[in-house]
């Protein structure tokens, strides 16, 4: 079945690009909602009361570095360097986890400071937008973790480079989305 394709792009890779296109509409809608409602919050606390830019800058940097680790993991698996593949995959997943940990800390801190999900318009838009992104990161970490386990079992080598590449496409996309969110939510506060 998996013969040469009409476009020359493997089916799974084309599917991932297509999926990313669809995801752009998903995040686009969420971001548009956040931006439309920006500054319309009527009930405290307000974004500038809570958003901790230095802290999120650090976790943002960690997430961006995970994209670099992902690139290195793909390069390693392509040249069939399995030791390096395991290392870079593990670091990618670990950096993703650190980002998620930061998000967990941020969310619980906000709730502690009097901003539960149902508090106001800011809490609604903020938690659902960044939470959707966090869920995507979590899904990516599970995916990377699965690839890592496969690699440790010796079932991942250069023949599976395409699988790693597709996971990488997803991971980079999720990172790019975060750059937009970081700019619009935090830097423009």
């Amino acid at each position, binding site marked *: 079945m998996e013969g040469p394709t009409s476009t020359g792009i493997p089916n799974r890779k084309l*599917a991932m690009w297509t999926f990313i296109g*669809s995801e752009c509409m*998903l995040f686009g809608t969420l971001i548009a909602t956040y931006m*439309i409602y920006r500054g319309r919050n009527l009930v405290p606390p307000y974004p500038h009361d809570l958003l901790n830019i230095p802290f999120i800058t650090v976790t943002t940097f960690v997430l961006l570095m995970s994209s670099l680790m992902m690139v290195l993991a793909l390069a390693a698996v392509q040249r069939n360097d399995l030791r390096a593949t395991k290392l870079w995959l593990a670091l990618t997943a670990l950096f993703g986890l650190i980002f998620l940990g930061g998000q967990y800390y941020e969310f619980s801190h906000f709730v502690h400071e009097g901003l539960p999900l149902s508090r106001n318009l800011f809490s609604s838009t903020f938690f659902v937008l960044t939470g959707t992104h966090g869920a995507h990161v979590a899904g990516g970490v599970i995916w990377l973790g699965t690839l890592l386990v496969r690699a440790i079992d010796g079932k991942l080598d250069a023949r599976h480079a395409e699988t790693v590449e597709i996971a990488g496409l997803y991971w980079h996309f999720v990172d790019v989305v975060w750059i937009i969110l970081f700019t619009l939510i935090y830097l423009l506060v």
Partner: protein
Amino acid sequence: MAMTDAHSTGIWSWLTTVDHKRIAIMYFVAGFAFLLIAGFEGQLIRLQLAAPARSLLDPDLYNQLFTMHGTTMVFFAGMPLVVAFFNFVVPLQIGARDVAFPRLNAFSFWVFLFGGLFLYASVPLRVMPDGGWFAYMPLTNPEYSPGPGIDFYVLSLLISGVGSIAGGLNFLVTILNMRAPGMTFMRMPLFTWMALIVSALILLAFPPFTVGLIFMLFDRRFGTHFFDAAAGADPVLWQHLFWVFGHPEVYILILPAFGIVSDVIPTFSRKILFGYPVVVFSGVLIAFLGFGVWVHHMFSVGLGPVVNAVFGGATMLIAIPTGIKIFNWIATMWGGRLRFRTAMLFAAGLVATFTIGGLSGVMHSSPPADLQQTDTYFVVAHFHYVLIGGTVFGLFCGFYYWFPKATGRMLHEGLGQAHFWLSFLALNMTFFPMHFSGLLGMPRRTYTYAEGLGLEVFNLISTIGAFIFTLSFVPPVWNLWRARRRGEPAGHNPWDASTLEWTMASPPPHYNFAEIPTVDRRDPLWHPYIEPESRGDGDEPGGAVPRRQPHEPPAPVVMPNPSHWPLVLAVGMLLMTIGGLGSLGLTLFGLLVTAVGLFAWAFEPPFGEEAR
């Protein structure tokens, strides 16, 4: 597992099938059942409105019925019937042995089915959603719709939306990537072209709706304020999110019908499609413009004259590519050797009735005119003309056209013609009078009307028409039943059509093509330079596609394995959906089942060696 190969017919083989032809049949049966149910709901509405001040339905039940009627028709009848045709026809037309992701295809079907069944679980519980198929906020917020009815709406559309997006992704990749050698874009049959465009529409239009549904779910379940004016939000956001999906959705339903008639009219006119590239690009243009016209559903919101004027103008622009298509169909028929078999009757019927619906559409693309027509029966008349006269007629056209291919049996022509004329009469009788009752000011979604407003005659005619509509389903159902036993064998190409699906036996073998053909022209079976008699033997000059596939594949064909994991995954998502009604435990359990299904799916070998 190994026992359930593609040849067996037990129930397990249907639950685990990944064969696009079987999935097509399941989509068709389920979609047709939902069509009958939703038609029955429409019939009840017409009975209530047959005369002024009737009390067959109380206002509350009436609201539930029109909501269920609209929601079912769009999401659980129209879309699955469209996707049934995608499934059956697209791989055959492009020369592929299946879709790009067969298990994902099965998954799409199961979540659609579970979404529909979940929605209908609200019927025995007597808590059907009652906010209209568009579920406008703030009417649907927890304060004004406290019961679980709207939750059934939100959750069923969330789960079936996942299936729609997966299906769009699957068919986009299939058409881009799985075409036979030589099947360039400008050689693709029109139905495949429209399936490609619609797949892109699904992928881009469903996410905003999904996000809107998630907002609504969160507002209802977790007390967020996305549509809460008191918190500074704007309930009109819901209308934007709904219609930025809802308008492309209209084209998701109509473009496949356009594709079907664009294949059928040439076949029964004995002429190639007039202006093929223009018809293709008109379809692309309709889809593109379709994303820029959603505000015409919201003219009466009061977004301002500039906004309304821009969206009104964009809406009028859509009439141009649509009109081009209609003229191309007429020009294809012009001077052709017409054969008015049932499929062709429905195609010609579509050209006529869709044009009527299109004309009233142009009328309310003008905001001042629309302000008079909004929420009246004039609009009801308009969209039933385009959805029945367009989509449903197109689907019936495709049904009569491809039924012989799918089953190997011919349908009875007389019963088919009776079906066409009955439904053609019923459509016009039911919905033409609504133009008048609407212009007289009869409001939609109101359970009754007063005597003496001049509405009685029009409503009575509409109701009689609706009865004839119900009656019009007798001939096709009888026809189906009859074809099982007494339908004549169809042969490879009963209509002498021009596209690849007519090269193999009917019904097609599970591997479709014994040999993947090489295509060197549009309408490959109508090579104009070869005499018809010499076309059968497979050794034509110029590499033309043989008229018949060989009986046996020359080498063993590797086909996808059946799998039960798509079903498990869908069950997991159904459990999560049910849990969404208020049980966190069930949601988490569903998540667990989903995760198990996902991992098992990922590590299951997708392909197996299949002997001939």
